């Protein structure tokens, strides 16, 4: 009976994998990778909610009765492109951090900050 909810569980597992990478790893590039996985899990969440059994892609044509919900598709389509733009900004920050601190490991950055004070 509860098996009908498996899409949410897949999403939650992916989301937690991303969350784990973000909090357990000190490497900043890995944190960005974790955030990307987290982000994709949210995309899958929206798209799986838009899906209707027996439906088809929301492009109008004759003889089709059931379409999947177009609204989440729109939201996620724009979110993907915004996501890459913000990821690029994050990577740019990491590159500058590497230039300023010589490292992208959280702990070493904190050590250098503590030395400065």
């Amino acid at each position, binding site marked *: 009976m509860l098996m*009908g*909810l*498996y*899409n*949410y*569980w897949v999403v*939650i597992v992916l*989301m*937690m994998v991303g*969350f*784990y990478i973000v*909090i*357990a*790893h*000190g*490497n900043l*590039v*890995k944190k960005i*990778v974790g955030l*990307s996985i987290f982000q*994709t899990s949210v995309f*899958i969440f929206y*798209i799986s*909610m838009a*899906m209707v*059994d027996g*439906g088809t*892609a*929301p*492009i*109008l*044509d004759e003889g089709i009765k059931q*379409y999947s*919900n*177009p*609204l989440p*598709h*729109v939201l*996620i*389509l*724009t*979110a*993907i*492109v*915004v*996501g*890459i*733009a*913000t*990821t*690029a*900004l994050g*990577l*740019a*920050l990491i*590159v500058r951090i*590497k230039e300023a601190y010589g*490292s992208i*490991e959280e702990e*070493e950055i904190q050590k250098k900050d503590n030395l400065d004070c």
Partner: protein
Amino acid sequence: MKDLLAVVMLLGIYSLLSASLFVAMDAVDVAFTEAAVGAGISTLLMLVAITMTGRSEYPERHKPLLALAVVIVTGSLLIYGTLDMPYFGSAEAPIHQHVAPRYINDSMQEIGVPNIVTSVLASYRAFDTFGEVVVIFTAGIGVLALLLVARRSEEDEKADLFNYSMHEQHLILRIVTKMLIPFILLFAFYVQFHGDFGPGGGFQAGVIFASAIFLYVMLFGMTTARRVINQSFIQMIAATGVLLYGSVGVVSLLSGKEFFDYSALSSDPVAGQHLGILLIELGVGLTVASIMIIIFFNFASRRGNQ
């Protein structure tokens, strides 16, 4: 995994797989975008970034137990939260009851565009999409502010020599790709202008166009690419796209209609919608393509200067 190169490549494969998952769930437009962005551009940007930051992870700090505990608790709370969610694929779910029936039943009369995703993106929710385009534009400015460097000519020559030796080695690759680039650009235009009838639109077209330029940069080197593509021109195009998008809204305001009400653009409402969607998708395509090119150029030249 300690090797970040492997991590980034796996992320690219994961993105491509999630794109196929989107096709399986009938979201063709989304799958298109994810395949172009996730498997193409984001993998490439991350690769460029790790060439500058080092490809191996520092092994010491890794305390999995506390993190694992937090993740398991959060995950089980979330799973508990899903128990009264509607089932996967159920047509009675609340999400399908409110605005979606109107989009599906009335968009053909109101907008006259077969692809409902395009009519929602560019007409019903045009204001929302405008916000997204401005966010992309702002992110591009942020990357420019963080990474912009002045070029030095000696290093250019050094890079030229290096590129030249590389190109001698990869002659077949270079010729095959050179033949592919025009077709990729043509495909980008097809996606841009066919977005009303099939999956596609400004976002996807912009990303595909930019990826053809990336390919050119990777094969012929930054110095050649800089000669072909003028950076200040690209920056101007990025701003023009946002301006074009916003102006369509302002024009409809000035003719006494609501912001982004395209019926102001023509005496026939459906023709007005077509014109409005065409202009807005063009603005989106221009901005997305040029911002992606700006981001990639700045990452690549930063790398060349190190």
